[in-house]
C-alpha cells in the first residue's frame, strides 16, 4: 500500500520511494528511506496535507506526494 492510505495514528514502515526525480530526492534527503518507521500524526483541517512523524521530527506532505511512498502497515 502507499503512504497516503494510512490513517492518522497508524504506524507503518517504508518499503520504497517510487517517484524519481526531484520529488524522490527530497524525500530521500528528509529520511524517507526503506526500513524507516513512520507514523501518521494528523490530517490538516481540510484533510490535505498530512503530517507524519519519522525519526523524531514532523513533516507534512500532500496526499499526492505521499502516494509515491510504498509502505507496509505495522
Amino acid at each position, binding site marked *: 500500500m502507499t503512504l497516503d492510505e494510512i490513517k492518522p495514528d497508524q504506524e507503518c514502515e517504508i518499503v520504497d520511494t517510487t517517484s524519481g*526525480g*526531484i520529488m524522490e530526492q*527530497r524525500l530521500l534527503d*528528509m529520511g524517507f528511506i526503506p526500513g524507516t518507521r513512520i507514523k501518521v500524526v494528523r490530517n*490538516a483541517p481540510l484533510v490535505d496535507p498530512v*503530517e507524519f512523524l519519522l525519526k523524531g521530527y514532523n*513533516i507534512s506532505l*500532500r496526499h*499526492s506526494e505521499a502516494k509515491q511512498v510504498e509502505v507496509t502497515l505495522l
Partner: protein
Amino acid sequence: MSDKSQKIMVALAGQPNSGKSTIFNILTGARQHVANYPGVTVEKKTGSFRLQDDRVELVDLPGTHSLTSYTLEERIARDFLLNDKPAAVVDVLDASNLERNLYLTFQLAEMDISLVIDLNMIDVAEKRGIKIDTQKLSQELGAPVISTVGNKGKGKRRLKEAILSASKKRQAAHFRINYGDDLEPILDSLEKRLSEEMEISSRYPVRWLTVKLMENDEEAQKLVRKYSQKSGVILKLAEEKREAFKLEHKKSPQKVIAITRHQEAERIVEASVTRSKEITRTLTDRIDEVACSRYFGPVVLVATIYLIYELAIVQGYKITEYTWPLLAWSRDLIASLLPSEGFIFDPFFRSMPIWVVDGTIAVLNYVPIFLILFALIAILEDTGYMARMAFILDRIFRHFGLHGQSVLPMVIGGLYVGGCAIPGVLACRGMKDEKARLATILIVPLMNCLAKIPFYVLLIGMFFAAYKGIAMFFIATITIIIALSVAKLLNLTVLRKRLRAPFVMEMPPYHIPTTGGVLRRCLERTWLFVKKIITIVILVSVIVYALIYFPGISEERKAHFISQAEQAQKIFFKKTGKDNPYAGFMAGDNLMDFTRYWRDYKKAKMGAKGKKAKQAVEQGFREKNLEFFKIVKRGKYKVKGEMIKDKHAKKVYTAYKKLGKTTNKLRREIKEETIITSYMGRAGLFLEPLTRWAGFNWRVNIALMSSFAAKESSVATLGGIYQSPPGEKHRLEDRMKEKEKGWTALHVLAIMLFMAMYPPCIPTLLMIKVETGSIKWMLFATFYPIVLGSIIAVFIFTGGNLLGLSGMQAMFAFYILALIVLVLMGLIKREQEFA
C-alpha cells in the same frame, strides 16, 4: 597591528532552523551586513569579528537539508563552499535532531572542508533526555565538536577558539563514508579517472565530484564540461556506470548513496548518544493538537491573522497619528529653508522640493506600521507557527496555484481593508515553490492597501452613502475573489512553465522567540526598506512633478494673471486709503511680507489645539511683528492689558481679506490651468475618448494617472481639480457631485473597481523587481492590472448602462459573477505536479 592582521573567511552551514543565524549573531554582535546573493532573493548575511590578531569574515549560509542542486538554497550554499573556499565551516547542528542533521554534515565533510561541529540546542536535547558523548562524536567525524546554546550565548568562547584553530590548520575533516561494496569500486575507478584531469581536480574535491556524478547531479556535470578537456569521455563513463549499477541492483546510485548516509548517521548516533527517557508527547505535540485540529485550527488561524491585522494595521495606523506631526514638522523645516513663496507664482525651487518631500513623507508615514509588521512576522517565523498556517490553508490555496504560505503576504498586503503591498511582497521570501511565490508576488498588489482607502471612502460617500457598510464589504472582499482567479489565470498562462517545488514541509517544534532576535530582524528589514525606497520615491516624484507642472502656462496667460493680481492690489490700496497710518507698513515689498505673515498666522492658528497653544501662537506672532499683528486681529488687541479698538487696522483687515480671496482664486486658476495644459493633462484629455467606455472623463484620468507615484495623492489631486468656488467651503464629495452632474453610481463603481485593480505603487514595483530579480516581471506587474482594471471598469459601466442597472444592482451582479468565475477557476484541473 591591524595591517598585519589577516582576513579569514568562515561560513556557517546547517539545516534549516538549527540556529545558524542565532550563532551568527552571537559571534558577530551587531556588526553585520545583509544583502542578497547576486541575482536571487536569498539573503546573504555577512559580518565580522576579531579573533586574536585576525579578522574573521563570517557568512551565514541558507539552511538546507542536503546539498543537491535541486533547490536554490542548496545551490547557493554549495556554490559558496566550492568557489569561495572558506578557511573553515561551522556546521551548526540541532542536537535534539542529531541523526537528521548529520546527513548534511557528511556531505560537507565530503567537500574537503575544515569543519567545526557546533552542537547547538543542547538545552533542548537535554530536556528530551538526549545525552551526546561529544568526544566520541568528535572521534567519529574527525572534527572538533563544541556544544552551544545559541539563544543564551553559551559556548561562544569555545566555539571561537575552535574556529581559530580549524582555520589555521585548514585540514579537512578526515571522515569518509563507505558507500558499500557495490558502489565503492565504481567510485574508486571514476575517482582515479577524474584525478588525471589536472584542472578540475585542482579546483574541486575529487571524491565529492565523483559522488555527485554518480548521483547524476546536473551542476556537477556542468563543472566537468567547463573544466575538463575530456569531459565527453568522463561523463559518458559516469553515465555507463550509473546505468550498469541501476540494472544490476535495481536501484539508482543516488538512492543507495542517500540510504547509506542515513544508515551511517544512525550508526554514529547509536554510538555516541544515550537516551535517558523516551518522550512520546512533546509540548509541540500538545499545542498542535489544538492549533492544527479540525475545528480549532481554523479558529486559531483566523484569530492570529486578525491579531496581526489589528496590531500592525489598525494600531500601527494610530501610531502614525503621533508620528505624523514629526514628519510635518520636518517638512515645514525644509520649506522654511527654501526660497520663499511668491504672491501668485511660487518659484520652481520651492514648489518642486516641497512636492518631493510630500511624496517621501507620505511613504515614511508608514514606517511604524512596517516596524510592527516586521516584528510580528519575525515572531511568526521564530515560533514555527508559519508552517502551521501553510499546513492548514494549503488545500484551499493550492486550487488557485498558490501555496499555504501565500496567506501571510496577502494579509499584509491588505486582505481585508488596509495593508501595504511593499512588506507583502517582501513576505513572499520564504516560499520555496517558485511558481506559487511568483503568483503571490503578482497578486499581492491587488489587495487593498492603506492608500486606497481614502479614495474608496470618498467615492462611497458620493453615491453609496446609504449603503456604506455593504459597499465597503463589497470592495474589501471582491479584491480577494478577483485576486484568486487572477492567480489561477497567471498559473495557467505566464507561469505555466515555472518550476513547482514539492510541498514537503518540516513542522518545526515551537520555540519561544528571543526579544533580541525579533528586534534585530525587524529593524534590519525596516532599514533595508527605507534605504531602498526613499531614493526611488524621490526620483520618481521629480518625474511626476515635471509631468504635472510642465510645460506650464503660456507667457501670455502668465501676464494676464499678473495684471489681475496687480489690479487687485491697486483696489486694496485704494480701499485702505492713503492717509491710513498702516499704509506705510503695507507699501512695496511689505505687502508680500504681510501676505506670508497672514498665511503663517492662519496656518498656526489652525494647527494650535487647546487654549494654551492658541495663546502661545498669539504671543509669538505679536512679538514677530506688532503692526501686522494689529491687522490680523481686525484691530482688536490689548495694549498694557487694555482692550483697544483700532479703526484703521480694521479697515486694512477688511481690504486685505478681499485681496486674499482674489489671490487664492488666482492661484487656484493657475494651478488648474497648469494641470490641464501639462503633459499629464494632455494625456488625460487624449485618453478620454477611450476611457469614456469606462465612464472616466479627463479629470478622472488625471487623478488616476497621478496616483501612480503614490496612491495617497489621488484624493489630493482630485481636491486640486475639483476646487471649491471661492468663499465657499464644501466637502470634496459635494464639489465633485456639483461639477459632475451627469455622474451616476455606475461611474463611481467603475472608478472604484479600477482603483482596486490599480497597478502597484513605485516602491512596490521596486520590491517586485528585487524579489523576482527581473525587470520583466516588474513591467508585467505594472501593466496587467491596468488591462484588468480597464476591462472590469468598461464591463461595469458599459454593461451596467446597457442593462439599465442601478449602482447597487450592478454591484451585486458583478459580485455574483466574480464568485462564479472563482469557483470555475478553482475547478480547473491542476497540471501534473513534477516530472
